[in-house]
């Protein structure tokens, strides 16, 4: 992992006795990891910024990188959190999804509808409601996921939106 330190570019007085220096540091990070660190609707990066006090930005060119802005301590905390969250978050998401997403037990589904996969869910629901894929996708495929969410989560999310819109299409 390479990093570039632009520290001490913006001194800011906190008090007469204490000086705090805001710096910027660049960490190379492949863009394939950006999705998990951004999170759905930016939830991960917002939480990382709140927990560290640093500001985090993503660069995609010329190489994938993270830019962390803040005091020395804020940048160090941010980077520790980032490396840890990057390693653990995918597994935690999977654990929650495993707990949550049992196709035959979703509270919004009638007993007669018990699909065993997200593809079957789309097929089942097609008879009741039009479950269109996301605007950026032409069909319900794995490529419809663009924010690090699983395909299953994407389908459930759209199903619940459609369910609310149609006021329970199964009645």
């Amino acid at each position, binding site marked *: 992992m390479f990093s570039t330190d632009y520290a001490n570019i913006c001194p800011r007085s906190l008090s007469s006795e204490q000086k705090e220096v805001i710096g910027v540091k660049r960490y190379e990070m492949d863009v394939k990891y950006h999705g998990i660190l951004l999170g759905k609707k930016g939830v*991960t990066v917002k*939480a990382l910024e709140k927990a560290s006090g640093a500001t985090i930005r993503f660069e995609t060119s010329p190489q994938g990188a993270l830019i962390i802005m803040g005091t020395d301590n804020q940048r160090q905390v941010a980077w*520790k*959190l980032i490396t*840890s969250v990057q390693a653990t978050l995918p597994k935690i*998401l999977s654990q*929650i999804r495993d707990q949550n997403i049992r196709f035959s037990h979703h509270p919004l589904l009638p007993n007669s509808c018990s699909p065993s996969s997200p593809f079957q869910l789309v097929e089942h629901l097609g008879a009741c409601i039009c479950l269109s894929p996301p605007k950026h996708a032409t069909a319900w495929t794995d490529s419809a996921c663009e924010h690090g969410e699983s395909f299953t989560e994407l389908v459930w999310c759209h199903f619940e939106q459609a369910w609310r819109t149609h006021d329970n299409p199964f009645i």
Partner: protein
Amino acid sequence: MTIPSFEGRVVNQDQVWPVAVNEAIIRAKQESEEQGDSFK
């Protein structure tokens, strides 16, 4: 917004990511504190 705890089922799909991120940061802080680091 109140983020529910990681334990148990997360009924609201909109809260899956917030719950997971919250849990990941808690674990990161715990791990760091065990190594003697401070987040102050």
